[in-house]
Structure formats: C-alpha cells, structure tokens
C-alpha cells in the first residue's frame, strides 16, 4: 500500500446506488434490455402482445353483450352501440343454471349449493394443518362425503333425485372429487402391494396396474356404460354414474400407484433399515417413515395425475352424461343461439383453468411447507 491512499474507508459518506441500477428502471435494464438479443426479444414480444391483447379485450369485454334474448338480439344491440359484435355472454347468462346444475330439479337446487359449501368446508382442514380445531374438523371431513351423497341423491326425508339428472359443473365436481379422493388411498395400496414380498399380492397389483394403464379411459367408460350389463345378472340395475365413478377412480389409481412407486424407490434403503433396526413394524414404518417421504417426493406427479383426471371427466360426454361440455353442445342446438360455440368453450375453459390452477398452486404450497432440508 502506498502512503497516498485514494480511498479511505469511512471518510466519505455512502452514496445511494445510481438510479439505473435499482428500482423499476434497474429491473427493466437488467431483465429486458441487457443485451442486443434481449432488446430484440423484448421489442418483438411487445409487438406480439399489441397484436393479441386489444382484440381479445374487445371481444371479451368492450364489444361484448351481456344481456339479450337471442343471438340476433346480441347483434342488434352491438350494432346499435356502433361496434362489431364481441362475445355474446347473454347466452351463457341465460343458460348459466343449466351449466351449473344440469337437469337437477329447480326446487331442489339448494341441496347442490349446500353440498358445494360442505365440500369446501370439508376440504379446508384436510388441505391446511394450521386451522383451529383441526382434529374435530377432520371428523366433519370424514362424514362430509356421506352427507353430501345423501343431499345429492335424496331419500330419507329428501325428495330422491335420479343420477341422470346430474349435469354441468356439478357433475364434473362429483366425478372429479370422488375420483381424486378415492384414487389416492387405492393408489397407495397398489404401490405398496407392487413392492410387497408376497408374490401373489405383487402379481395381482402389477396385473391391475398394467391392465388399466394399457387401456384408454374411453374404453373403460364404454365398458362401464354397456358391457357391464352383459356380465351382471339380468335384472340388476347398477347406476350408470356409480359405474363411471368406479371406473374413473380405478383408472387414476393405477397412475397414482406408479407415481408413488417412483417416490418409494427414490428413498434410500437406509430409511427402512433404520426403522427396522428400532423395531418398528411394517405398517408403522410405512405410515411414519416411508410414506410421508415418498408422498412428499411424489406431490408434483400426484397433482399432475389429479389435474389430468379432473379434465378427463369431460370424456363422460361420449356415454351420454352431460358435463359442462355436453351442456354446451345441447344448448348450442337451440336455434335462437346458434353459432356461439366460442363463448361456450371459453366459459368452460375458464372454469377448468381456475380449478386446475388452484390445484397446481396448492401443490406448490405443500411442497414448500414440507421442505425440511437445507
């Protein structure tokens, strides 16, 4: 070091960082305009968004018609206002109840509403562990499926509603939630069975998983809707919706089983050895040591399968159940509203996106919460 120091620590006040390095300007400089390539990409992206967003906004909101009695009505209102016709949301508005409840009797629809609220209430203590009185709330969650079943089907004091009246988003939720709730435990059992030391059990599990995975869901749904009648003794009536529920649940449980098997195999052998060496029994080690870790690893795959299952519920349209897409198709047959399929599909897409996005976010939250390593 020379005697003349150009800078002595502490003798000058600390200057604030230059405006070009921090805040919004700093962020934009670093992320959008840091190099020639980046500048080109940024400009192209802005141009692309300029092409896409204004027409979309016009169609969805600005030029849209929200109340009208027919498609022609929509067009008339739009031209009276001096612009082209955007989305004719009036159509969705008029058919909204059909989309939500299907053909569920109008005077009984409160039962669907109540079921929906109960489902949300039952999910909260299952999904989040920091709710007050969680232990008691979990008992409610356990009872909720049965109460909801009773509410929706009726009987015992309520007017019975046959399942062929179910439809719309309510049907999607019934199939989707039953499939999700049912397939997780079955999938876990299959995954453990596939790793079992008992050859017979292992073979049954492998055969089941490979068969189900090897067959398209549509085929299984057809089997459920038609072929099952040939196998069952004549005269037995076996509710179509119930058959679909069973098939969907079994179908996704095979996928869940494979996802969880991946998680089980990712665990080091030392975990089970440590559990064994301390004298834990098989089921204890599975429940306390192995499954919590294997399931945690498998969360992305499990949620992926659930999202797939949830969207696959739209396939029931081909065996005559009227899910939202089926409802849309049925509504479009109305001559008053012909040609408005875009509105229907955008509306249904928004519903599915919201549900699936919520599942995806929850899985991220769960992964973060269960992260214990460093």
């Amino acid at each position: 070091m020379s005697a003349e120091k150009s800078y002595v620590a502490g003798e000058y006040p600390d200057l604030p960082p230059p405006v070009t390095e921090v805040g919004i300007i700093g962020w934009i400089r670093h992320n959008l305009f840091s190099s020639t390539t980046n500048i080109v990409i940024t400009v192209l992206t802005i141009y692309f968004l300029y092409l896409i967003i204004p027409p979309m906004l016009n169609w969805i909101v600005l030029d849209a018609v929200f109340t009208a009695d027919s498609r022609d009505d929509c067009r008339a209102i739009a031209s009276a206002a001096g612009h082209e016709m955007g989305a004719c949301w009036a159509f969705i508005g008029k058919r909204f109840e059909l989309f939500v409840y299907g053909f569920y009797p109008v005077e009984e629809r409160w039962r669907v509403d109540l079921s929906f609220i109960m489902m949300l209430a039952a999910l909260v203590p299952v999904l989040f562990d920091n709710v007050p009185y969680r232990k008691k709330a979990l008992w409610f969650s356990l009872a909720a499926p049965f109460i909801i079943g009773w509410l929706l089907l009726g009987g015992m004091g309520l007017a019975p509603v046959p399942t062929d009246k179910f439809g719309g988003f309510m049907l999607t939720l019934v199939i989707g939630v039953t499939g999700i709730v049912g397939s997780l435990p079955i999938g876990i059992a299959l995954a453990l069975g596939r790793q079992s030391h008992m050859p017979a059990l292992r073979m049954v599990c492998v055969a089941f998983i490979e068969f189900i995975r090897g067959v398209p869901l549509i085929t299984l749904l057809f089997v459920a809707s038609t072929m099952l009648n040939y196998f069952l003794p004549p005269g037995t009536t076996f509710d179509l919706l119930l058959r679909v529920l069973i098939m969907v649940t079994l179908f996704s449980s095979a996928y869940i089983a494979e996802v969880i098997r991946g998680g089980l195999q990712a665990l080091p052998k030392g975990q089970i050895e440590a559990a064994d060496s301390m004298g834990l029994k098989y089921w204890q080690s599975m429940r306390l040591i192995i499954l919590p870790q294997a399931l945690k690893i498998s969360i992305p795959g499990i949620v992926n399968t659930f999202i797939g299952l949830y969207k696959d519920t739209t396939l029931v349209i081909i065996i005559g159940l009227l899910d939202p897409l089926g409802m849309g198709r049925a509504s479009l047959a109305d001559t008053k509203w012909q040609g408005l399929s875009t509105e229907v599909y955008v509306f249904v897409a928004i519903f599915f996106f919201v549900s699936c996005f919520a599942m995806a976010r929850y899985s991220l939250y769960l992964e973060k919460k269960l992260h214990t390593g460093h």
Partner: protein
Amino acid sequence: MSSQPETPQLEISDEVVIQIRNMHKWYGSFHVLKNVNLEVNRGERIVICGPSGSGKSTLIRCINRLEEHQQGDIIVENVELTNDLKNIDAIRREVGMCFQHFNLFPHLTVMENCALAPIWVKQVPRKEAEATAMKYLERVKIPEQADKYPGQLSGGQQQRVAIARSLCMNPKIMLFDEPTSALDPEMIKEVLDVMIELAQEGMTMLCVTHEMGFAKTVANRVIFMDGGEIIEENDPHEFFDNPQHERTQLFLSQILAH
C-alpha cells in the same frame, strides 16, 4: 487419539449376550460369511476391522436381522434369531444400531426422530419419551438442536443424534457400522468422544471401524476379518503390536502407513 487417557479396566461379566455359531451367509452364489463363530460377553467393546468387502458390516447387520443368515445359529440376549417375527422384534428392541450414513428421518425433527421408536414400539407416553430424548440429546451435547431438522445439522451432529436416537430405546447392545466413515475429519472426534463415553459407561458395543485410535482406547478385543472369515482376534495391544496372521500384518501396515 493416542493422547487419550487409557480407559480403566472395565467390568466384563461372564454372561454371554451374543452367540454366533458356525454361521454362513450367501448373497446369491457369493459366500459372504464363512463359518463365523463369535461370543460376546456383557460389557465387551469389540472393534471389527478388515479390508472392504471382508463381510464385517454384513456380520453385524446379521445380529439384528437387517441381513438374513442361511446357516448356523445367532442367539442374542437368549433369543434365537429365526424367521419368527416375534424373536426378531424382541432382539431389535434390545439392540441399537448406528449407520455409516446416519439414516435419520429427514421429515422429522431431531426430537421426533428420537422419541418416535419409544412411542410406537414401547408405547411410552409422548411426554416421557420426549423427556428421555432430551436427556440423551444432552448426553451427546446437542440439546439445543432438538427442534431442528436433520438436514440443518452437520454430519457429526447428525451422527450424534443417531446415537441418541438409538439410546432412547435403552438398548443393551449397540452396533456401530462404520459410524465415522462418512464424516469430515474435523467431525470424527466429536462422534468418537460420544462413543468412548458410552463405552466407559459399560455399554456392550460392536463397532465396525477403521479408527485404530478408538480401538486402542476403548476396545477390549479387536477382530480382523478378511474374505468373510474371522482371521484373527486378540486384545488391542497384542493385535497391533504383534499381529499373528500374515493378512493382518499386511492390513495393518496399509492402514497405519498413511
């Protein structure tokens, strides 16, 4: 380690706690353990060493049935190891084990790791199990880490938790399978110190280790294995100063040379 004060002569009772007779084990067609005979009395501190692949880890893993032997008898605390799950459980309750890679449960806190087995295997009430766990965590000198997860601890701390976890089951015999092999050099001592303390309290210990300083300090017997056989066993002084067998001499010259 040689600066460690030599352990005073510890009591070794006449009671035989582990008896292995004419034991053989195969992995498929590979003969891993050949005619192993070993008797361990209560209070003995035995170090098992030998080149890698000599079957030393397999031998101690047979004692609590992490590995199955195919021939011969293993009797632990007067219970014979057979396919009877009841016997296996009874033995595992008396025998604690520490692994090379600790094998702590990463999804549970240190406290939960320690209290788990007493609660589920011995049906100890949670409060009591946690008090016991705290006692042993204090003994391995990490009570302040009780609420952390294993992933937040250093290797040496993890291995000490693993020892505390085993001790919580109040075992009569402790097996150590290369407890310091996966540790950074500066952490080996903290683990060995805990093990030495344990030995001085009279715990029956079988340690597979290459820590010859530890063997000299606490072991009352050193067993050398090679090729699945017990080649030589002797008290540590004789073993190190005057190895009888050619293979033992070679092994010792290799590990002590570097």
